[in-house]
């Protein structure tokens, strides 16, 4: 089912860019599934009290969405050997039907031995870079 092959990939190969919508309801659902009930992810009052502009997405929700760029590209999520991100800015999620927009891209930045490649991931929301130094190591057939 994996369609991408190591031999076909070069440094500079771009992964298909993806746009995700993040709504308040997504955060409520993620809180329940992950067990992270920090109120800054569902209460504007609490979020503003700690100096945030309003409710923000769970960093791990953003990391999960960004990972889709990799796993949809390779097909088998088990091909991911390493995945790391730095949370550089929050994804602010307004209380409306549109929510926030998260745009994720990826570029192959290194070919390693053992059929592994390094993909560098970019993620932006409302003009801000929300992930930095984000990379995945993926093993390709």
């Amino acid at each position, binding site marked *: 089912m994996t369609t991408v092959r190591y031999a076909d990939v070069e440094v500079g190969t771009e992964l298909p860019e993806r746009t995700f919508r993040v709504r308040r309801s*997504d955060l409520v659902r993620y809180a329940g599934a*992950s067990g992270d009930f920090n109120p800054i992810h569902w209460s504007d009052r609490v979020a503003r009290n700690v100096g945030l502009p309003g409710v923000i997405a769970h960093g791990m929700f953003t990391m999960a969405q960004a990972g889709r760029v990799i796993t949809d590209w390779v097909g*088998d*999520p088990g091909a991911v050997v390493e995945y790391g991100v730095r949370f550089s800015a929050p994804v602010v999620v307004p209380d409306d039907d549109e929510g926030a927009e998260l745009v994720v891209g990826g570029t192959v930045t290194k070919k390693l031995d053992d059929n592994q490649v390094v993909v560098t991931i970019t993620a932006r929301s409302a003009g801000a870079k929300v992930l930095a130094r984000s990379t995945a190591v993926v093993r390709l057939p």
Partner: protein
Amino acid sequence: MAINRDYLGRAYELPEPYEVTRVKIREFADAISDPNPLYRDPAHAKEAGYTDVIAPPTFPIILSMEGAGQAIADPELALDFSRVVHGDQRFRYSRPLQAGDVVTCRTTITDIKSLAGNEMLTLESEIATTAGEHVVTSVTMLVVRGDAPSGT
């Protein structure tokens, strides 16, 4: 407030092994809106060479956050939870978690440092089967934000 450096190396174990189930994997995959059939269809997963459905790459955070939670709640560590934010996160996989896995998670404080008035706490969680097979290591860096300078 500075985190006590004496706690470098302190470790926290899950109170009991965690059983990975198809239902929990599906719930998590639904929550991240990921339709990948390897998370949902056991027959499909077996065809791909797995023993059962696999968990998404960020699923192990459920286990490592449990360990981080124990550290944050440790009264001797004196962390102010309301000031804790997730700084970065990295996973290193030997293989994906699969339904049916029964795993342990040991979380160790591997680094404590101060930077620009904030405290950074690094926690490393080793997730392995009860038989001792390594599955994934999760490295979590938490930032404990310092007091805002007066007048700002």
